[in-house]
């Protein structure tokens, strides 16, 4: 397999010691086994996700993304930008599209960028890692490399909102996307295509500011996974992962439930199916242990 190269935007939450550092570790392993090379954008900055609007107007917010695009053009010329965080991908892609639609706005962003001695042409495609897997590698190639099929694990594919809307994955439906289920199948695990909460919002950033209301939605997401007989939930989004995993104790206290549902990333599934250790798959980053995956990794 020829080595594929991309310009990588990992995002704040993926840094060492941050809430989804386990996503980054598992992605690094995944890229090793799939022969993908990620070149981190030097000195990339935060994109302010979907929550900066209280203080940041539209131009300042999108200038943040412009800086990352400009740095990528400068240092990783000709490479597609690939993000692993749904919100990073969305913010960057949204900014790039807005610059294309509105020449004036594009000029203004470049005027702001000049203050940081940067300039962007905005020709770079902005992609999600899932697009790389599906479009550049493909389900078939993905399943060919499986060394340890994830047999006997039933997985609820939780796509969430922002990996899926407004851009989503080409050819997939907004209301009932199937790509995560197809990935799960390719790895030899059992998908649940009728998991009805697959695109339910978890509250996103409002999990911090409106915890009661958000936890009610998170409860529904986990409950439906149990109802469908899932052993674990898998997701592509770091905030979905955190929101659905880490508040289970608080939800149990609030609602008298007894949840203990592991929530993992697609990349961790791939790592284990490709024969890598639990540590390489960053399964030590689980607050709720994904025992069935640990067992296969240890085999």
């Amino acid at each position, binding site marked *: 397999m020829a080595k594929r190269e991309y310009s990588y935007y990992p995002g704040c939450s993926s840094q060492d*010691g941050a809430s989804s550092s386990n996503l980054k570790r598992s992605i690094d392993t995944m890229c090793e086994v799939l022969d993908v090379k990620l070149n981190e954008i030097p000195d990339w900055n935060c994109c302010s996700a979907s929550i900066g609007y209280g203080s940041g*107007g*539209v131009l*300042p917010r999108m200038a943040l993304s412009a800086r990352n695009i400009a740095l990528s053009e400068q240092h990783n010329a000709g490479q597609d930008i690939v993000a692993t965080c749904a919100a990073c991908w969305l913010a960057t892609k949204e900014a790039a599209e807005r610059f294309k639609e509105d020449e004036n706005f594009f000029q203004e962003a470049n005027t702001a960028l000049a203050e*940081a*001695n*940067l300039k962007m042409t905005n020709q770079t495609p902005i992609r999600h890692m899932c697009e790389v897997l599906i479009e550049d590698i493909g389900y078939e190639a993905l399943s060919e490399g499986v060394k340890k099929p994830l047999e006997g694990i039933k997985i609820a594919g939780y796509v969430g909102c*922002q990996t899926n809307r*407004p851009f989503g994955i080409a050819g997939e439906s907004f209301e009932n996307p199937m790509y995560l289920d197809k990935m799960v199948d390719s790895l030899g695990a059992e998908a649940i295509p009728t998991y009805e909460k697959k695109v339910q919002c978890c509250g996103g950033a409002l999990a911090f*500011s409106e915890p009661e209301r958000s936890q009610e939605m998170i409860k529904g997401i986990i409950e439906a996974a149990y109802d469908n007989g899932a052993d674990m939930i898998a997701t592509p989004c770091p905030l979905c992962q955190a929101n659905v995993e880490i508040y289970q104790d608080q939800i149990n206290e609030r609602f008298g439930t007894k949840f203990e549902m592991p929530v993992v990333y697609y990349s961790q599934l791939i790592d284990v199916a490709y024969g890598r250790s639990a540590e390489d798959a960053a399964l030590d980053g689980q607050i709720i242990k994904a025992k069935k995956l640990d067992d296969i990794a240890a085999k």
Partner: protein
Amino acid sequence: MSDMNTAMVEKYRNDFLKEVEANVEEGQWVKMCMQCGVCSGSCPLGNAWAHPPQEIFMMIRAGKRDEVLKSDSMWMCTSCYNCIVRCPRELPITHIMHGLATYSKRLGLAPKTQPTSQFSEIFWNNMMKRGRVNELKLGLSLYFKDGFGQGIKNALANQKLGMSMMKAKRMSPAEFFGGHGIKDASGLQKMIKKAEEIELAKLKANT
């Protein structure tokens, strides 16, 4: 910023729709709404919205300036983008909600203690310091936003969560002393300052 509010009231008098079209992100789309109600049925926190998006659009056209800009409704938007992919008229509803929130805050009309508005501000300031978000300080400022006593209470309530995050190496006390950041933070700050200037100059030109 209340000077700007007075100026805007003066200028647009009875035409709030025009004011929104000129000054709110994607505001020019509001008049395209055909009041079908699909968006309002799509908000995950639907029952928490005093005025769901469809109603907000109607109120803008009806000139209900104060009711809209002082409302906490837009702050209930989770940025789930359900509405955008469903709206038959393809209004960028999410962005209009963000834009109304930005605008109401700029004019000093947003409810002062709205938690998402406060969180949004804390997030922005946190990120601006070093160009990347410091999650530990973000969490701490959120806990302590209502004062020290409440902060300790909030922190204790989340203590177990914090401990398990640290054990899983997904939270780091080292972040308290500096932590992650970019090299060219000053370049980034200058860039944002410029972007703000450009945007404010446009708003001023509209007053």
